[in-house]
Structures are given as structure tokens and as C-alpha cells.
């Protein structure tokens, strides 16, 4: 007998006897059960047996199987009345403005308008969503100390006082959506090769705000504005810095024309960025159209 068969017999001696518990079926003697159809062998994909879970007939949103639904239960209230007509002014806090100035994102040696705020890239404006410009909010008004010539679209009394106490000037001015679209991406607008549009007058419900000297409106009388500056200084109790004696008097007194959109550029001009020339209209009809 060979060695290996000897070994095998030895192992067999140690193993238990063959019985029903340790034998298996002959190969091929048992047939496999039915092949299930579908992805998981014909099971229910985790949706349970019967009912709305399996049929996926979900109730519509807010439906409460016959109850008076929650979303119809309460009396109506005109929360959103006229929302599509009201102008929106996304806020910019004075704290943020101070940070933009301190981090050299805004040059204070030139007048600051919406274009320079938008060019920082940290303030976004969407005229198609009824947004009409910057609303300068009073957060951080206590620590504001930059002397600037600022033009925003909405400001309250405290903001005006904080700017003027620091020796600056502020103007509130209105831009129509077409002008705003030109200001958002100036390069893109100039590349279109269309003349700079003239700024439209504010709508009737905004005229009052923008011609009010207490709001420093751009349509207000300059003499009345200087009176209001003095009155506000007395109200808040600070000494009004004299901008007449200031070194940057010319910069501080620079204002846009009510029809003007960009500083230094007039409506009707075409800016050619490729040839670096500015084309100005000469025809009398055009000059009359773009005159303020």
C-alpha cells in the first residue's frame, strides 16, 4: 500500500460514520427553484406588500385626506401685496464699506459710486430681480471714519450723519434697470459697442425721495442740502467738517449729471476698447436727445 492511501485510511478512521446528517445530495439530483423575473428576482423592491407604498400613489402636497387642509385653513393676509412692483435695494453695511476701503478694494481719492462698489466683486446686483442698487445700512456707523464722496441708492438719516461727520459727502441717486445693467459689467457693456444710455428719471413714487434734501437726493437743491447738513450735525451733535477748506474739495464736490451713468463719460458716447478711442455724437438731433 502506498503511503498516501495509508494516510487517507488513517484519517477515515478518525472521522465519524456516514449518516443522514453528514451526507449531501447527488449532484444534479435537485432542481433549482423558479427564476424570478425583474431586477431583484421578482421581489418587491423594498416597497412592502400592497397599499399606497407599493402603488406609489402619494397624496398631493398639503392634502390631509379630507380634513380642511392646513394651507387653506387660515384667513388671507396680503403679505406680498405689490411685491412685483416694489423696488428692492440689497443692503451693504457701513462696516463692510469700511472694510472694502481698508483693504484697498475701493479708492477713496475718487468719487465712489455703484460701479466702484460692484467692481470690488463683493457686492452683487441683479436688475432683473427688481434690484435697484445699494441700500447703505447703519451697521458699523459708529466706527466709520473714511472721508469719501459716496453715491448710493438708499440711505437713512444715521448713515448720512456718519458719513458727514467723517468729513465726506453722500448722494442718493436713482438708476433705471438699463443703466444698472451697463454698470454691472462695464467692460462687457463697452465691448457691445453701443452708445452709453442716458439715465432715466426716477418713477413717480421715487421722485419725492430723490428730490428731498434731507435724503441728499441727487435732484435736490444744493443750497438746501447744505442747510440740511448743518441741521443734521446739530441734531446728532457733531462739528460739521468744512469741505470748502478741504484739500480734496474738487473731488468731494464732484457730482454726476442726472442723465449721466459713468463719471467722466457722457450719455451717447461710444467707448472703443480695442482702438482706445471714444466716439462722440455730432449730429444735432442726437445731441438734443442726450442732453440733460
Amino acid at each position, binding site marked *: 500500500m502506498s503511503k498516501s492511501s495509508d494516510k487517507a485510511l488513517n484519517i477515515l478512521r478518525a472521522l465519524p460514520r456516514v449518516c443522514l446528517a453528514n451526507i449531501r445530495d447527488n449532484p444534479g439530483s435537485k432542481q433549482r427553484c423558479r427564476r424570478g423575473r425583474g431586477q431583484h428576482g421578482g421581489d418587491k423592491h423594498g416597497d412592502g406588500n400592497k397599499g399606497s407604498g407599493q402603488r406609489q400613489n402619494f397624496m398631493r402636497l398639503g392634502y390631509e385626506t379630507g380634513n380642511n387642509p392646513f394651507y387653506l385653513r387660515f384667513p388671507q*393676509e396680503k403679505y406680498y401685496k405689490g411685491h412685483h412692483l416694489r423696488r428692492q435695494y440689497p443692503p451693504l453695511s457701513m462696516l463692510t464699506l469700511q472694510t472694502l476701503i481698508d483693504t484697498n478694494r475701493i479708492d477713496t481719492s475718487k468719487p465712489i459710486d455703484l460701479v466702484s462698489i460692484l467692481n470690488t466683486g463683493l457686492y452683487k446686483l441683479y436688475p432683473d430681480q427688481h434690484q435697484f442698487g445699494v441700500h447703505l445700512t447703519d451697521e458699523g456707523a459708529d466706527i466709520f471714519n473714511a472721508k469719501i464722496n459716496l453715491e448710493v441708492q438708499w440711505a437713512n438719516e444715521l448713515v448720512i450723519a456718519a458719513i458727514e461727520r467723517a468729513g465726506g459727502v453722500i448722494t442718493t441717486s436713482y438708476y433705471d434697470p438699463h443703466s444698472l445693467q451697463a454698470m454691472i459689467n462695464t467692460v462687457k457693456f463697452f465691448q457691445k459697442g453701443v452708445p452709453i444710455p442716458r439715465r432715466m428719471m426716477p418713477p413717480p413714487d421715487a421722485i419725492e425721495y430723490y428730490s428731498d434734501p434731507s435724503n441728499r437726493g441727487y435732484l435736490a437743491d444744493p443750497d438746501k442740502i447744505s442747510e440740511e447738513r448743518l441741521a443734521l450735525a446739530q441734531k446728532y451733535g457733531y462739528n460739521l467738517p468744512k469741505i470748502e477748506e478741504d484739500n480734496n474739495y474738487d473731488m468731494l464736490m464732484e457730482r454726476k449729471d442726472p442723465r449721466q451713468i459713468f463719471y467722466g463719460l457722457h450719455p451717447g458716447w461710444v467707448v472703443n476698447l480695442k482702438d482706445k478711442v471714444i466716439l462722440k455724437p455730432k449730429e444735432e438731433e442726437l445731441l438734443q436727445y442726450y442732453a440733460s
Partner: protein
Amino acid sequence: MFRTLISAARGAVSTIATNGQKIQNFYQPSLVQQAYQRQFSLLSSQTPCRLFNQPQELKNQVVLTNTRNVTKYSFRKGKRKSVKAVIKRFYRLNWGVWIRTLCGRHKRLWKKSPPRKRRLRQHVFCSASQSMLLDKMVCDYWRKPKYFVDDPYNPYHTREEFSITSRKPKPYFPPE
């Protein structure tokens, strides 16, 4: 078996025969004839098209049913649509909760006590799950913040006053 059935049928016929008057009422041969005539007149097209000649009648036949489902895909543009009933009754604050009025705030005020009337004038929060439902029932536009100036709801859009819910970094005051 068959005989019994026949006999039962005979009995039934006899009962019907006794109530001859009622049978006539059931049949109403004159009405049937009218219906036939009407059908025939439509088919013979002596009046070209009855429906289009009388638009008012057609309009009366159309039954308008209320559907307040969320439109997931509109017919024209395939866009989701808001449920206007939600916009009419609720207001969304920017931090995610919706506010609503109270039921019965205009009803039977003569018998309600002053404190109760004061409570009815208030606007209250919806719960988190209710706000979630309302969020789903409106479009993106209503979930975006609106930057109106001089809006009475402006102070409620943030929760900076409460230390747990405030978002902005707190100002640093150096120790003295």
C-alpha cells in the same frame, strides 16, 4: 326544477299584468320616441352643428373644477408653479419659518374678551414640518430674500438678538 322556474315566471307575469298602469309609467314610450327623434335630427344634419351654433349652451355644460395641486411641470414651459393659496395666507421669513394669521380673527368679536382679541390680532409661526411643506409648495422666487426698504417685516428676517441663532461673528471687546 325547470317547471318550478316556469311557474315562478308565470306568477311574476301575472303580478305585472295586474299593475298594468305602472308598466306604462316605467316604459314611457312617448319619451323614448322623442329621444329617437332628437338623435335622428342630429344625424340627418338638417341643423349643421348644434354645439357650435350655441356656444353659450356649451359654456354652461363645462364644469370648472378646483385643482389646488402643485404643478410640477407646466404645459407651456415645463416649469414648477407655486400654489397661490399659500402665498395669499402665509409669509416666509428669511431664516426659513413661515408666519400666518389666526383662525376666526374677524368672527364673533362681540363675544370675545379683549385679551383674546389681542391674541387673535397676532401673527404666529408655523411649525418646522409645516414650514417645510409650504417651502415645497412654492417656487424659488418666494424662498429668496427680498430687499425691500421700509418693510414692516424687515426686523424679523434675522435672529441676531438670540445668541444661539445669531449668525454674524460677535464683535471682539479686548479685556481692560
